[in-house]
């Protein structure tokens, strides 16, 4: 009950603040077509069976989640008008909007919530989101009670953004495999503010406002056209010449800085905390010199992160010292920042038993996967480590599956990588450090890292409902990982939203960027 009142209070306060600031600004006008971009073709439009930012942009418009999040990481009402976490933390009650309907006019019922949880549990790539949910009770049409095997604070974030799409049981419950259901990409019947008009792979996804949307007057836009433009330079030019209004998840520093100086367009890196992308240097802790923590620490001291931030990222990226995104309330900045210190690096390497001979200590390989922006960082790291006698050979890997195989089987020494938090650490962080998740495919614990205390902390934090205690547990976890250096954290991936000044209420608020509904976005003439 305490959580319910707290939730209701914060929701009311946030609504009041929003209302005041909106009144101070211009009055939104309805209508118009927003042209946004997708960096690739979505494999599936239904976010219940497919994650990822491309599916997220369109999926979050067509399918609603129970909650949305504000800038302060507080849950806000969405399909659930209110919610209640039981005192023992073993159940979460969702009270649904009573007038909400799917795009075919059928009411959204608690049984649809129960069905959606079942589908997501079985088919969504992030199993940890709903694994502790044992059953969903539906005492009436508008109340769904999620029963848990143990307290599971990550559930709140798992019920927001694109992560928990409420899908219609009367469509997807026809016995066909929801993963490959024909209605995932055609004749989609969603629960969100926009409905599908046309999906042409390689070209666009067109959506139009759903007139039966439960919230009066929303959405403001008549249409959203999501154009598939894979090339970042082409997207930037299209934005500058007015062909498109909005481009999200832009992380190419030169493109971001060029748009920053352009007229009629704005740039922001707000609103990506939930996605939580971090660039890092992964190290295989199971073999060779990298087994020794002193060698890994020496590598961290030998890399001048400020150089990378200035020369490679060109001032577009935020610093990241741990595996938790710096925008997260669980981020712990009070850890060793490994400022450049070649003397310390040399001393650590000597101590580890790798003496310098003719300017060299040992050879090591670094995989280079063809991801945008990886090449300059890899080449810089090779050059930086040579100063302390670590001779790096760069191995170019032709494509993602080849690289995934090397990483997933611990058949590598070092590699750059970018991994997303996906809201709560239980969803996107734990997977990298848990001993139980070593070498379980791409973006598992591909460092072979194992620390009993880290396992214990992550287990405890996953079930701790008290936010302050939870924060302390994750703080200790971040300190240990920072000292063990299975990963050297470089920076938050500089994801930016580029938007025309015509776009009002752009998706830079909240924590999910365009992986959340754009029902309040409107266009100024």
């Amino acid at each position, binding site marked *: 009950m305490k959580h319910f009142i707290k939730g209701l209070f914060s929701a009311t306060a946030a609504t009041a603040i929003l209302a005041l600031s909106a009144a101070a600004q211009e009055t939104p006008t309805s209508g118009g*077509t927003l*042209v946004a971009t997708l960096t*690739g*073709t979505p*494999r*599936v439009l239904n976010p219940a069976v*497919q*994650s*990822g*930012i*491309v*599916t997220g942009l369109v999926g979050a418009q067509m399918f609603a989640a129970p909650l949305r999040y504000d800038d302060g990481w507080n849950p806000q009402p969405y399909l659930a008008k209110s919610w209640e976490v039981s005192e023992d933390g073993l159940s979460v009650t969702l009270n649904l909007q009573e007038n909400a309907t799917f795009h075919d006019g059928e009411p959204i019922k608690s049984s649809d919530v129960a069905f959606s949880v079942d589908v997501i549990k079985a*088919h969504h*790539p*992030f*199993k*940890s989101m709903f694994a502790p949910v044992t059953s969903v009770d539906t005492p009436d049409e508008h109340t769904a009670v999620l029963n848990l095997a143990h307290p599971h604070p990550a559930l709140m974030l798992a019920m927001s953004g694109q992560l928990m799409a409420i899908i219609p049981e009367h469509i997807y419950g026809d016995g066909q495999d929801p993963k*490959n259901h024909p209605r*995932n*990409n055609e004749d989609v019947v969603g629960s969100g503010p926009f409905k599908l008009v*046309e999906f*042409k*792979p*390689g*070209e*666009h996804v*067109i959506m139009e406002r759903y007139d039966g949307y439960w919230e009066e007057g929303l959405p403001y836009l008549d*249409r959203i*056209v999501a*154009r*598939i*433009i*894979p*090339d970042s*330079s*082409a997207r930037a*030019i*299209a934005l*500058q*010449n*007015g*062909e498109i209004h909005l481009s999200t998840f832009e992380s190419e520093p030169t493109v971001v800085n060029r748009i920053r100086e352009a007229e009629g367009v704005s740039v922001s890196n707000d609103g990506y905390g939930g996605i939580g992308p971090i660039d890092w240097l992964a190290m295989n802790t199971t073999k060779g010199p990298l087994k020794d923590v002193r060698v890994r620490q020496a590598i961290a001291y030998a890399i001048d992160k400020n150089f990378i931030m200035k020369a490679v990222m060109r001032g577009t990226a935020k610093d990241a010292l741990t595996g938790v995104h710096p925008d997260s309330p669980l981020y712990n900045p009070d850890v060793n920042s490994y400022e450049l210190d070649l003397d310390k690096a040399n001393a650590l390497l000597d101590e580890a038993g790798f003496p310098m001979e003719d300017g060299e200590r040992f050879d090591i390989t670094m995989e280079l996967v063809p991801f945008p922006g990886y090449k300059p960082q890899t080449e810089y790291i090779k050059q930086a480590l040579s100063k302390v006698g670590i001779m790096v050979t760069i191995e170019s890997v*032709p*494509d*993602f*599956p*080849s*690289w*995934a*195989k*090397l990483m*997933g089987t611990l058949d590598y020494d070092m590699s750059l990588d970018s991994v*997303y938090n996906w809201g709560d650490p239980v969803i*996107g962080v734990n*997977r990298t450090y848990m001993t139980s998740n070593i070498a*379980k*495919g*791409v*973006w*598992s614990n591909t460092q072979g890292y194992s620390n009993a205390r880290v396992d214990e902390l992550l287990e405890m934090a996953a079930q701790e409902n008290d936010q302050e205690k939870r924060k302390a547990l994750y703080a200790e976890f971040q300190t240990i990982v920072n000292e063990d250096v299975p990963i050297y954290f470089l920076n938050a991936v500089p994801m930016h939203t580029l938007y025309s000044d015509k776009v009002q209420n752009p998706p830079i608020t909240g924590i999910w960027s365009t992986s959340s509904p754009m029902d309040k976005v409107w266009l100024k003439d």
Partner: protein
Amino acid sequence: MDLVRSVATRLFYAIILLLAVLVLNFSLIHMAPGDVADTIAQSMGGADAEILDQIRVDYGLDQPFIVQLGSYMGRVLRFDLGYSYFYQMPVTDLILQRVPATLLLVFTAQILALLIGVMLGVISARKPNGILSHFVTFFALFGYAAPVFWTGILLLIGFSLKIQWFPVAGMRDVTLIGGFWVHFWDVVRHLVLPVIALSSIFFALYSRLSRATMMETLGSDYVRTAKAKGLPIRSVVYKHALKNALSPVITLAGLQFSAVVSGAVLVETVFAWPGLGTLAFQSIIARDTPTILGILFFSALMVIVGNLLTDFALRAVDPRMRARG
């Protein structure tokens, strides 16, 4: 009768070639580490190991190589190119959706490059040291040397950003309302820059080749004889010499049929042109085996058809070919 036998032999070899293309490529793709489950996981921001295993079972990737190959070839022989793992639709539908855009782009670029390339090649052959000849040589070398994606970006900056004459990306403006002609002109506007970028490569090939062959032909005895007979120079060049000089150009144009996929990949990616090139590129990145094989099948088919058409065209312009049967 010789012609029928010749066509039948060619068709037989074409079928063998198509099957070989599929078996070889199927084997090569399977030899590479990793599979489509990894790329599906990539598109999802990661995936649980259980989900990865399930994907492999769903698509039969857990089966031995020979079983997978047999099953695929069996489907192909029943004219079924399979189901795209990544796009979740039949490969044939996927390819047919993309073919018109690529054909429009590649054929427009080819025809433009062929007409202008041959014309300028002939003109510069007549005055090899003239200003126009140097001008053509410069542009040909530029077109051949400049990476096509760079040319594409330059064209975008020049004609879409600085002077906003042409749209940046895609094949049509879906927000446009109007009749047939409105949409027709919209497609033409979208087509201009990708065609210029793509034809810059073809133009280089055709203008250089036609210039060289034309210079050689103009130096031959029969041309000298024709000139000595007092025939007008225009008639000598365009009626007698050009016909003979065209043979190598036609052969080269025929070979460029394979560019339906290869040449268009970069241009389509830069201009977000919804064609087969981008599909090929994305399928290779995604390790979407059925789609890659489907595109290679289609590409091999285009080369074979291109070669046949080249033969017919050569017969039309060269009596010696007709005489050979």
